[in-house]
């Protein structure tokens, strides 16, 4: 080698700034992992896609209207907000798209388009952008949008009808025949609650509902059409290490265990309503859930506890939205309880006055 000529060094053409002497000078590390935030969002959307497509197949045009109005209003709100404040456009990170899809999946198929649009504006505008956009919101945007729509238009969204005298009259028929549809608003969960309140007078067989809940349930929100497809999507995200198994396991495990404790059918209580969608796709939202492993398990258990207690003892059977929103508020506190001990130390971090 000692006789090899020392050739002159050829410099690469100048690249994007910052450059010095024709090349990049930037702080390390100089390599980075392949997983980008955008890719994470796309994987979550891919995991939701089978259930979403199936809901459109089962419910048709009304479902399309809900999806389109939720997505357009959510993404549009973020676009307009950024434009109005002259900020870099962020709709390309696909988080608003994901929020729109999730929002649609927690809407009943007969929801008017304008309620969906309001919910989308609230979700992105009020729950996300006012806090500073992606990463800074305390509450899950889609669930805030749904909560506002639900509480503003209770009658339209259907939740309180059995108690407001609406379709309560059809409960005996529906319970006996099992003919659920998307129009009456009589969800299996609501019928089960009415049956439970009437001490089993309607003879509603919970275990007979598994098949419908897993594969084709048109009485409920768009995200309740197929629990099986949602579970498959959720497991995909866990296998891909996009979501931490602790939150869904804590959530679903608690719902099943407490349903059993209170004498109801655990499987029915997991599959009916928004528990599956909430546990795999809503409660696992990075921004609004704890970052510590133990904290995530506690967070999941808390969601399940709140959900099942209010389902059995509250005024409405479907409380997934409020369970997760409540725990969202506690997430920073939970994180502070489980600060880790750094390698070599015997006491944890001294805690944060303000959450980081």
């Amino acid at each position: 080698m000692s006789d090899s000529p020392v050739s002159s060094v050829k410099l690469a053409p100048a690249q994007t700034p910052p450059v010095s002497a024709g090349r990049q000078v930037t702080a390390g590390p100089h390599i980075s992992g392949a997983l980008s935030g955008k890719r994470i969002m796309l994987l979550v959307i891919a995991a939701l896609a089978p259930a979403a497509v199936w809901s459109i197949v089962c419910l048709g045009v009304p479902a399309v209207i809900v999806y389109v109005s939720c997505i357009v209003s959510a993404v549009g709100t973020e676009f307009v907000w950024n434009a109005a404040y002259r900020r870099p456009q962020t709709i390309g990170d696909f988080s608003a798209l994901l929020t729109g899809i999730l929002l649609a999946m927690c809407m009943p198929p007969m929801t008017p388009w304008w309620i969906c649009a309001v919910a989308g504006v609230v979700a992105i505008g009020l729950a996300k952008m006012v806090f500073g956009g992606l990463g800074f919101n305390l509450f899950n945007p889609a669930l805030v949008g749904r909560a506002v729509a639900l509480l503003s238009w209770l009658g339209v969204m259907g939740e309180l009808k059995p108690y407001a005298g609406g379709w309560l009259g059809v409960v005996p028929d529906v319970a006996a025949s099992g003919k659920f549809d998307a129009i009456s608003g009589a969800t299996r969960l609501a019928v089960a609650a009415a049956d439970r309140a009437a001490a089993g007078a309607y003879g509603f067989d919970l275990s007979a509902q598994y098949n419908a809940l897993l594969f084709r349930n048109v009485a409920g929100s768009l995200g309740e059409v197929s629990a099986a497809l949602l579970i498959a999507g959720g497991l995909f995200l866990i296998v891909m290490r996009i979501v931490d198994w602790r939150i869904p396991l804590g959530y679903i495990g608690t719902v099943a265990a407490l349903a059993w404790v209170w004498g109801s059918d655990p499987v029915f209580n997991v599959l009916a309503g928004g528990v599956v969608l909430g546990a795999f796709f809503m409660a696992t939202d990075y921004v609004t859930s704890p970052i510590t492993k133990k904290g995530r398990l506690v967070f999941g258990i808390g969601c399940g506890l709140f959900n099942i207690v209010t389902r059995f003892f509250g005024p409405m059977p479907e409380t997934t939205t409020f369970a997760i929103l409540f725990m969202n508020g506690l997430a920073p506190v939970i994180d502070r309880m489980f600060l880790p001990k750094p390698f070599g130390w015997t006491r944890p971090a001294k805690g944060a006055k303000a959450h980081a």
Partner: protein
Amino acid sequence: MAGGVFRGGIHPPDRKEGSAGSPIQRAPIPERLIVPMSQHLGAPCTPLVAKGDRVERGQVIGDVDAMISAPVHAPAAGEVVSVGLALTPSGTRCVCVTIATDPGQSGDTFVAIRPTDAGTASAARAAGLVGLGGAAFPAAVKLVPAKSTPVDTVILNGCECEPYLTCDHRVMLERPERVIAGALLIAEAVGATRVVVAVEDNKPDAIEALRAVARSVEVLAVATRYPQGAEKQLIFSVTGRVVPGGKLPATTGCLVHNVQTAAALADAVESGMPLIERVVTVSGAVARPGNFLVAIGTPVSVLIGLAGGLRDDAVRVIAGGPMTAQPLGDLEVPIVKGTSGIIALTAAEAAPIVDTDQPCIRCGRCVDACPMVLHPYAIANYADRRNWDGCERFYALDCIECGCCSYVCPTNRPLLQLIRTGKGALLTKGVRR
């Protein structure tokens, strides 16, 4: 008595195939050597030569009377053409002695260190030996253990866990008896009973070569995972001992040296060879990646030329492994004692340059990856807001700057850079752990 695997860490693509199979080649001595007076942690040396002086290969040209320092020797015979400030790979300027070398040197003769028989530690000092893994801590300091912390285990670090780098691998493969001799010298100097060479299990040939000449030295295969070669993580992997927070690794009774350092120590003790050359990996987007035995002070551009020059798609050149290296803005800076590699990265390989402030989405990947079990996102957020108390409460000073957090961050937040800012501010304030 292996300890197991440390928590966290990452598995970056190792990209060592370009240079791993390339035997060490002796690089010719270039026309001009730029020898910095500060190539180590600790006090810079004072130049002992002036412009116009003749120097012989191995002659001491800089020294200082400070405990934490290491003298500097002339890497080749020649004439001093200047003594003054020049740019170093760290991006700072320091006093450098520039030598116009005599043409046609063989590179076989050198001025041996004196004295040669005053013990291992003083030989390491006289040879200007520093840690060759990258940190460049003066080796002699570590060879005199404090009375309060006796050393029972010597660990030679042959992990080379950074992508691209293969210089330690080649030294273990081609000079295993030097590595083992160095290990035994260190063990003898500090009175250790257990001597371990820890090598990541992705280098079975190096493990085999070392075992063939190991004598009483244990050659241990450790898991391939970055940062396996970080001192605290390696001590845990080899012995199961945990360095207490805020304490030096020596408190565990373990002493860690790099394998190349050990080989250089053996050379210094047995033949009086000062540290005037080292093996450097040149890899990535260069025409002919390889491992070169290079005179200290050789300009980076000359070394890249030996590797066939940069490819057209090289956008970034760095000195060291890509997780911890300094970027080079100027390729006329010299190779120093701590330079383990010169890596050219393509746009596809290099971490993206992020122009705007990217949000933390609280995904927790940095928390999972941190081998020190810190909350990098929290420290970085506090540092971003100049909240140094927050940084301290989250143990910013325990950060070993391995870069795992930045590597895994899906939004490419400059986590390590922010944490360094926080650490710097805390150290300036005088905060100790």
